[in-house]
């Protein structure tokens, strides 16, 4: 039990994610999370504004149920499967982030200064959450999938379009991390 409460290493988590993908294939479904954002638009009546949202969202309810599971999983893992030890970060990352005004002292999985409730009342927090979320939603649909759909499901099926998308994910991520975050985090 103590071992389960430790953070899980990559060689445990990676194969387990592949098992989740396999289980979904066995259920006759594709493993992809961002499709849910489109379904939510359709439920909200977006079909009145764009043809893209005119589909039978009831056929996608299984995926929303999956999302509900991921929320519960997050709750169970943090509440009952955690030993409460602070997140381990290298000294180099800590000093780099602190210089950019990002907190690392709390030991949580997210910096409170960026994603805590109080951050919603700061320009920096709003930009990170609102713009960041917008780009994730817009980009995932434009690319036709996200990390689960392209990087895991698509690459597992050796799909070239997914490889192009993953290259794009990294170009965008590197641009943001190396050039834009140092500016945005100083807002």
């Amino acid at each position, binding site marked *: 039990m103590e071992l389960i409460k430790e953070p*899980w290493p*990559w060689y445990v*988590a*990676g*194969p387990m*994610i592949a*098992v989740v993908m396999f289980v979904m294939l066995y*259920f*006759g479904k594709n493993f992809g999370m961002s499709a849910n*954002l489109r379904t939510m638009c359709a439920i909200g009546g977006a079909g009145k504004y*764009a043809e*893209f*949202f005119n589909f039978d969202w009831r056929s996608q*309810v299984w*995926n929303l*149920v*999956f*999302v*509900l*599971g*991921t929320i*519960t*999983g*997050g*709750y169970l893992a*943090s509440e009952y499967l955690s030993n409460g030890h602070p997140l381990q970060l290298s000294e*180099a*990352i800590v000093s780099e*982030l602190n210089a950019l005004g990002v907190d*690392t002292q709390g030991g949580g*999985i*997210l910096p409170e200064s960026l*994603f*805590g409730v109080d951050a919603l009342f700061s320009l920096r*927090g709003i930009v990170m*959450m609102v*713009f*960041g*979320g*917008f*780009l*994730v*939603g817009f*980009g995932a649909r*434009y*690319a036709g999938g*996200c990390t689960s759909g392209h990087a*895991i*499901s698509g*690459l*597992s099926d050796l*799909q070239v379009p997914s490889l*192009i*998308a993953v290259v*794009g*994910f990294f170009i*965008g991520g*590197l*641009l*943001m991390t190396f050039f834009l975050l140092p500016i945005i985090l100083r807002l």
Partner: protein
Amino acid sequence: MNKIKYYLAGLMFGVIMTKAEVISWYRIYEMFKFQSFHMFGIIGSAVVLGGLMVFWIKKTGFKSKDGMPIHFMPKKMSVPRYLIGGIIFGLGWAMTGACPGPMFTLVGNGFVAMLVVVFSAVLGTFVYGIVKDRLPH
């Protein structure tokens, strides 16, 4: 009730993402700074094992639970769509540290402000749907 299996699969995914700290903004930052092997190891090993599984399904004709053949839809080839869309997604991923799976799991972890990220992602998807036909695909 027949949907409970999806709930349980999602539950497992949420636990894995939380326990492996995939949902951590710090881990994504480290990944893009090439300071840690952790995320590369997770995605890499998932793809290697996933690839073997997909290969095996195709080779043996393994059927789904309902006895149907498992189809893998080839995605339509395009460079601009996947590259530009991917770059936009990557910019957002590095900001929020959360892709469309983790952002929900983080809410379950008690980070209620993440609902703002979820809402913004839904809005981004909506705007894509509106301007879609004017973008290169």
